[in-house]
């Protein structure tokens, strides 16, 4: 399954490989990696973002845990969560209690919302994993205040891993890891840039497989796959269809079933940007991989180069302006807001976006989903109507109405 010595394999092959990895809820690539690395430490991280460089440099394999989707029947998780709490924590509980992650050494819960924060406490209560880390991302963005705190948070993670494998992390190792993840982010950005103008070359569903697969395999392997995918996509393939271009926003944590992703495109949309796997694209541009203080460089990037996110306090950099800029830059006709049911961050942001977009003249629709729901008829009709209304009655992309 690994890319071998640069030989170019067909795009279909890589999409098939990535699809297998992306939804492998047994996390078999991580299991194999652990067998291959005697002192390897497998660390599961929850949405949205964690600086995987830190785990990689410490001799670990970071593995994204994005819930069970529509592929895991929930038995135990429902006993932990009331009906009015989103779905992802119950499927994560089910995965862990059903031993899908028994080869994991530790778990990281990035700060995103009260539900995932408290899930870290349930893991502690049940003594799951050798360590459980709630990663408190700073909401203060002064480098000497929030930046220092963030570095301390990363040091905790390195300390936990060191307790398991005894490995001291050097600045050189961190810089090497940063460079690898810089490459990863650059390659993913290349795919998005190609799709901006040629979205028919790869569907959103295929893109999703390719990016999500990278969260469960070593970055070196993923980079090799991405190189090949980029090579394919930069050649003219396929044919444009009469679809509108949209940005998909709001599904950054609990992931919709793939059927929903497919339904959006089948209903007449090319999704030219999204926040489905936001963590893999959180840092915009490279992190400095040449400094003597790489943790400081990672913190600097978080403070100055983060993508817009519902989990980051935004007052000095309003999210509605940032999303509007993405719409404009991608030449999108509108926005589809897809929020997981009961997702506080996404749903509390919705009125802010919608009020601003009404003012800016950016068209949008909004609906809710749950990771385990795979009936999309109503959503497909809603998206289809949205697409038709733009195709039939509008002339120019929404972003064109913006002055900046």
């Amino acid at each position: 399954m690994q890319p071998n010595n640069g030989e170019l394999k067909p795009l279909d092959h890589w999409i098939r490989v990535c699809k297998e990895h992306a939804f492998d809820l047994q996390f078999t690539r991580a299991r194999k990696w652990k067998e291959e690395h005697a002192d390897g430490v497998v660390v599961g991280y929850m949405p949205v973002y964690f600086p995987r460089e830190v785990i990689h440099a410490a001799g670990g394999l970071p593995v994204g845990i994005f819930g069970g989707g529509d592929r895991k029947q929930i038995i135990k998780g429902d006993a932990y969560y009331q009906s009015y709490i989103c779905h992802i924590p119950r499927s994560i509980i089910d995965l862990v209690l059903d031993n899908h992650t028994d080869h994991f050494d530790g778990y990281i819960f990035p700060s995103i919302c009260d539900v995932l924060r408290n899930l870290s406490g349930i893991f502690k209560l049940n003594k799951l994993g050798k360590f459980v880390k709630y990663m408190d991302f700073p909401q203060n963005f002064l480098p000497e205040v929030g930046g220092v705190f963030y570095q301390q948070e990363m040091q905790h993670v390195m300390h936990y891993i060191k307790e398991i494998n005894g490995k001291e992390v050097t600045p050189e190792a961190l810089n090497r890891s940063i460079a690898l993840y810089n490459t990863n982010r650059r390659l993913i950005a290349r795919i998005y840039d190609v799709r901006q103008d040629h979205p028919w070359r790869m569907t959103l569903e295929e893109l999703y497989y390719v990016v999500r697969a990278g969260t469960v395999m070593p970055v070196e392997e993923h980079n090799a796959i991405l190189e090949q995918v980029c090579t394919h996509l930069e050649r003219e393939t396929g044919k444009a269809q009469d679809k509108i271009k949209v940005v998909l926003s709001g599904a950054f944590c609990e992931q919709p079933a793939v059927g929903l992703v497919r339904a959006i495109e089948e209903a007449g949309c090319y999704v030219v940007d999204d926040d489905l796997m936001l963590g893999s694209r959180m840092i915009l541009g490279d992190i400095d991989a040449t400094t003597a203080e790489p943790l400081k460089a990672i913190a600097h990037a978080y403070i100055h180069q983060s993508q817009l996110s519902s989990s980051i306090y935004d007052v000095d950099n309003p999210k509605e302006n940032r999303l509007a800029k993405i719409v404009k830059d991608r030449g999108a006709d509108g926005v589809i807001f897809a929020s997981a049911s009961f997702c506080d961050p996404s749903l509390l942001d919705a009125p802010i976006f919608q009020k601003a977009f009404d003012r800016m003249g950016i068209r949008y629709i909004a609906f809710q989903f749950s990771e385990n729901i795979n009936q999309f008829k109503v959503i497909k009709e809603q998206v289809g109507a949205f697409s038709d209304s733009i195709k039939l009655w509008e002339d120019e992309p929404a972003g064109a109405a913006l002055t900046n």
Partner: protein
Amino acid sequence: MAQEVQKEKSMILQKEMIEGLFNDLASAKEKGRKVCYTFVPGNLSELIRTFDMLPVYPEINALQNAMRKKSAGYIREAEKHAHSEDVCTYVKCDVGMLLKGNIGPTGQKLPEPDVLLLSYTGCFTFMKWFETLKREYPDTKVIMVHTPYQENGVMTPEMTQYMVKQFREEVIPKMEEVTGIKYDEEKLKRHLELSREAEDWITKIFDTTKHRPSPIDAYFAGVYYIGPINIGFRGTQEAVDYYKELYSEIQERIRLGLGPVTPEGEMKEEKFRLVVEGPPNWTSFREFWKIFYDMGAVIVASSYTKVGGVYDLGWRHDPERPLEALAEYCMNCYTNLNIPQRVALLSKCITEYQADGYVTNSIKSCNSFSAGQLAMMRDLEDKLEVPVGFIESDLVDPRYFSYSNIKNRLESYFQMLAQRKMFEAAETNPAP
């Protein structure tokens, strides 16, 4: 018809304090007072007072609107403006009130904020709430105070330093800028000294539930007792005087062997002693309380009364370390504790106050409390073999308070507790 109870002196004192605050707010702009919107958990009352500002607590307005049956209309108004049915109803009630002219619960117009002090403590929604308010008050300065979560059940020096640096680098300079008042640390220390005194008194007050019968209800009456300390009076002589008076009234009740005061007079017989986790429902607060006191159930401790600060374990504001004390205070609020810490605290309450049972009131729109409650309940049941009960309602959305459902559940629960007591009595005193 139910007879209203005679108001005790402490009740009158509290009423005067709150009325005074709302009157001050109503005339704040004409008198040139600066107004600071902030939250109860992690409220920096002493610092706000050091800068002579008046506080407004949006979640207090929301719950008072709910008790006055105004919240439903406000929530509907917010939902018309794209606010989801699924999110915090405090936020929607506040936004709805704002959209309808910002008339506060007392009928007086609330002044616009001069500063939004976002004490980001134990609740993710606070951040989204003030991001929303910032759009409504675009010229108002927002001061963010990020309180680190006690993920490992401890407040480390680096967490404290992170907060102190925020106070020094951002909070205090911005408050100076907004108010034109220079930071006076001696003044802050004087407020903190009074805070410490009030905290001693409130701890003693909630500790009186060790008596049988308990002289107070630590949940339904407890939410009134925490009023002054949570809504801006912590750090004042008024708060100290209020708590002294309240304590002396409770001592008198203990001397007379009286149970708690309810809206319908004294509770005659204490049948069940309970610990409750989760905020109360505010829209049907009295009906909710009545279900309990009608069944002879008194709440001897509750997590909700610790939401604005946990003092049970001995922590106090220390005037000698003023900014560090403010930092520790924020980190030590109940919803900023991790789940094992919450379990340990509740376990201590169940044991020390000799509770017969543990009830969770799970709030639909408050994930800060609700997420994890089932696991906590199961853990307490396993460790302490305490009978547990579970009900669901909401903070200020009346659509999610189902009276008969809750009453049925609680009645079944109380029947189970009664049977258990009967069996325990039979085991202790077997028939000859």
